[in-house]
């Protein structure tokens, strides 16, 4: 097949450009055959090769004292104390979920779980970051995705403990479904998916291989259009029961030393897992025989087998001679396992169909050969500016609060949370619904906090600053549980980078993430990039860099929750407020506009406020803590009341000029928390705050069943609850 004979339709099918094809022919010094072309197509897709983002991603900080494994493996790993490592990663499943919401979301969950298993870790928690178009128009996406996540997570017995969901027009055709998994492994049992040891066997375990999901990775690397629904066969179907068995078998496997490595089969199936596993060891290669791969159906070609994205499969590298030991473990769980090849030292992936060689490609060409794409970058027109003096003054803060509480972006997530098993494992000590979730690590006093965050409206208005906000907010959410932020995984969801404005957004997003993570000393140890979240050029998503973060508390008995706890406690605002209405939920809900710049972010201030909260929590001074984020101080305060089932009485809020009343109530200045404190701890807290140079101000006193700012408004908890609980039900 020369360039003349390979027709453009064929290249489009494997999502390669004519230029890329030329590079392949040049490197191979021959045209690839059809199987090879398919293999290169999937591995050179944006989804697998990161050819557009790779150079930029190198700017992200990925090292730190606690880091055991940075990007490049199935998942990142950090040391968390008492001999434990936390393994975690976030990944997108946007394109499949747009076409087939239930299965798309379910298999997204399944895939990220396998990434954690491959590191030898037992998955302990799932989180999901979701974006949809507004309800009720996007109800089918929303319902399908939520059901799919629950269907998989509930069945496999891993608690779904956190995440976020937002609604915006820009996601109407391109929902965002990002799944994060966190696992635990003893330090000395952390595994890496490296195909070491020439002659060691490659075993394929788990599900049989079918024709499902062929070209899934390529499909995820193009824009969606009218023909996308024809791609439904490119969406895989999940079997959580099988994965549960696979999980338990892999845990048993990790107790033996018969296994060299375990690698998930995800996007690009067998091709990618074998190539990646070998690619991590210089000079290593692999031979596999597709006729040995257990199949779900007859008549599958070598091409089908190599590109299938059938779920619930793992590649295991086994010490030569110990294959039967591994087979026994899998057969205990009624799982198929088969030796399909071995590790070589020739640097090539050679694919046999019995005796016939059907493909032979250099590993390096597969994993690293895709020419990096340097794209044009142009800053788009700036967002409309916001003239504060033209904003009508706040009339009734109580009425505004009720409308904000009922806004789908701020309202209670209980209708979603209760559809997910968030308790299995007997470890969830701070349940979802407040800030971060916190899981205890059994047998220790340690607690592991986890969250995902991103305000994409900020990112739309200023991608660099918006990405910084995502990091800062995630850190505040971790801190609000009393845990110190430790490390990050990121999922960059953007539109088509071939458009210069989008490529600029990508550059800015990565620059912002890098800056914030460096400032807050948070390494990014794993991540994923999902581009082409467009529909036929008409609607592009906001840049949505979802930040997944974990943190550690040394003794979880010092943990904090958002809800007010004791009558008579002082309720305080930590941090100072500015006229930060740009890009706010208040502006959108009350004035129907998205304008201005996101709040300025002083990362040194963030760090100082976080240190104060952690010090006060450790000293036992705080009864509750909650991050002020979307919706500002008053929404955060209302949440403290609703989550604690307790009201608050405050004197009238009279901000000093130039702070406006609307900004004092609803502005979104970062670096702020609502905390409650017993009266006796007040002096100590004040001293501590002065020492950290952080302003604290008294808002009011906890108690009763109303929220009142004297002379300004008074609402009953019932009224507020009604607004808050109903936001997702229409």
């Amino acid at each position, binding site marked *: 097949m020369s360039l003349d004979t390979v027709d453009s339709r064929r290249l489009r099918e494997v999502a390669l450009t004519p230029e890329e094809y030329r590079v392949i022919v040049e490197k191979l010094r021959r045209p690839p055959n059809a199987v090879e072309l398919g293999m290169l197509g999937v591995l050179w897709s944006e989804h697998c090769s990161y050819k557009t983002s790779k150079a930029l991603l190198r700017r992200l900080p990925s090292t730190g004292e606690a880091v055991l494994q940075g990007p490049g493996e199935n998942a990142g790993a950090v040391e968390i104390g008492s001999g434990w490592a936390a393994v975690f990663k976030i990944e997108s499943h946007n394109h499949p979920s747009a076409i087939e919401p239930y299965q798309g979301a379910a298999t997204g969950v399944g895939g990220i779980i396998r990434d954690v298993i491959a590191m030898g870790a037992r998955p302990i928690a799932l989180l999901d970051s979701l974006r949809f178009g507004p309800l009720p128009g996007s109800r089918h996406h929303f319902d399908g995705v939520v059901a799919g996540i*629950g269907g998989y997570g*509930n*069945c*496999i*017995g891993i608690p779904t403990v956190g995440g976020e969901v937002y609604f915006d027009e820009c996601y109407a055709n391109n929902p965002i479904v990002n799944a994060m998994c966190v696992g635990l492994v003893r330090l000395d049992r952390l595994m890496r998916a490296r195909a070491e040891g020439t002659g060691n066997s490659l075993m394929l375990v788990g599900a049989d291989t079918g024709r499902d999901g062929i070209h899934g990775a390529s499909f995820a690397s193009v824009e969606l259009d009218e023909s996308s629904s024809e791609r439904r066969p490119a969406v895989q179907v999940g*079997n*959580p*029961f*099988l994965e*549960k*068995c696979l999980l*338990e078998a892999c845990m048993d496997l990790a107790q033996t030393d018969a296994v060299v490595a375990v690698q998930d089969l995800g996007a690009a199936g067998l091709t990618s897992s074998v190539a990646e596993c070998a690619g991590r060891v210089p000079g290593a290669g692999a031979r596999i025989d597709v006729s040995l791969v257990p199949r779900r159906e007859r008549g599958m070609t070598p091409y089908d087998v190599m590109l299938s994205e059938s779920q619930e499969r793992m590649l295991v590298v086994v010490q030569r001679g110990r294959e039967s030991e591994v087979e026994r473990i899998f057969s205990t*769980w*009624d799982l198929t396992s088969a030796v399909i090849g071995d590790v070589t030292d020739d640097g090539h992936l050679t694919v046999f169909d019995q005796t016939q060689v059907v493909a032979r490609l250099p590993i390096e060409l597969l994993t690293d050969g895709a020419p990096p794409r340097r794209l044009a970058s142009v800053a788009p027109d700036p967002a409309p500016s916001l003239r504060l003096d033209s904003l009508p003054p706040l009339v009734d803060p109580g009425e505004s609060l009720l409308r904000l509480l009922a806004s789908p972006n701020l309202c209670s997530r209980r209708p979603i*949370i*209760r*559809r*997910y*098993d*968030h*308790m*299995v*494992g*007997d470890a*969830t*000590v701070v*349940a979802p619904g407040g800030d971060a979730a916190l899981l*205890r690590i*059994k047998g220790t006093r340690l607690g592991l906090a986890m969250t995902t965050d991103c305000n994409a409206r900020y990112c739309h208005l200023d991608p660099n600053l918006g990405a910084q906000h995502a990091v800062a907010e995630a850190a505040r959410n971790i801190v609000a549980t009393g845990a110190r932020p430790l490390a990050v995984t990121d999922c960059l969801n953007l539109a088509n980078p071939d458009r210069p404005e989008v490529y600029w957004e990508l550059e800015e997003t990565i620059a912002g993430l890098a800056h914030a993570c460096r400032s807050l000393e948070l390494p990014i140890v794993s991540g994923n990039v999902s581009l082409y979240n467009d529909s036929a050029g008409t609607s592009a998503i906001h840049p949505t860099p979802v930040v997944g973060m974990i943190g550690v508390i040394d003794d*979880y*008995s010092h943990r904090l929750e958002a809800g007010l706890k004791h009558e008579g406690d002082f309720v305080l605002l930590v941090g100072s407020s500015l006229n930060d209405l740009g890009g706010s939920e208040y502006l959108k809900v009350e004035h129907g506009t998205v304008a201005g710049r996101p709040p300025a972010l002083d990362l040194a201030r963030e760090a100082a406020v976080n240190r104060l909260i952690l010090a006060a929590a450790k000293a036992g001074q705080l009864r509750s803590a909650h991050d002020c984020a979307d919706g500002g101080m008053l929404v955060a305060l209302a949440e403290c009341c609703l989550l604690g089932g307790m009201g608050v009485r405050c004197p009238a809020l009279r901000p000093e000029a130039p702070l406006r009343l609307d900004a004092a109530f609803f502005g979104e200045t970062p670096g702020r928390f609502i905390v409650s404190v017993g009266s006796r701890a007040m002096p100590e807290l004040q001293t501590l705050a002065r020492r950290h140079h952080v302003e604290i101000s008294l808002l009011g006193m906890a108690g009763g069943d109303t929220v009142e700012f004297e002379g300004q408004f008074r609402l009953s908890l019932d009224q507020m609850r009604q607004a808050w609980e109903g936001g997702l039900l229409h």
Partner: protein
Amino acid sequence: MVFPGTWSDRDCGWVIDQVVGAQLQYLWHKDADLKGCDCVILPGGFAYGDYLRTGAIARFAPVMQEIGEFADRGGLVWGICNGFQILCEAGLLPGALIRNASLEYRCEWTHLSVERTDLAFTSQCVEREVIRVPISHGEGSYFAEPAVLSRLEQNGQVVFRYCDAGGRVVPGANPNGSLHNIAGIINKRGNVLGMMPHPERCAEPELGGADGLKLFRSVAGRGLKVLVS
């Protein structure tokens, strides 16, 4: 008792072993004997994926024969969530668990009114005590024929009923549409208990409540060897 797809085995095991301090033994679905245990727990999960209908495949597991005979001999059998569904499918308890009335999975805290305290499972509770225990299921709506239901009521076989915090058995406190707010029942002999809520998830205060511990202590207090089957 561990079937492929069971996931509350480790949580039950944790409570028995680490919280209560009773003797713990895991039993595999292919096992042919119960290793001398005094109480067999069938924990929550999705046994065999629950693909056909909850519990419908599990009832044919090799170990179920043995568990049936064990129950006939008066041994204590305790089905929690999926375990309750399996016991109904296996005919060890009457009725069935059908799809929640909301048609959605529900994971949340519920209040239970304890209606029997003369049982091995509830001896540490007081009559009509209200305990707080979470549920986590998609198919937990208890259903039985009217005749079966009235027999259950007449015999006092309803052990737990969903109620509000004040102990009132009202429709608003029913999370799944169960008939008569039924959350758990016992067989006539009093040795086979099935319940949808998860007591193993509330045996320590840091998990949000410790009421479930009363049930485990009731069983373990008898000095029994408990088997998580």
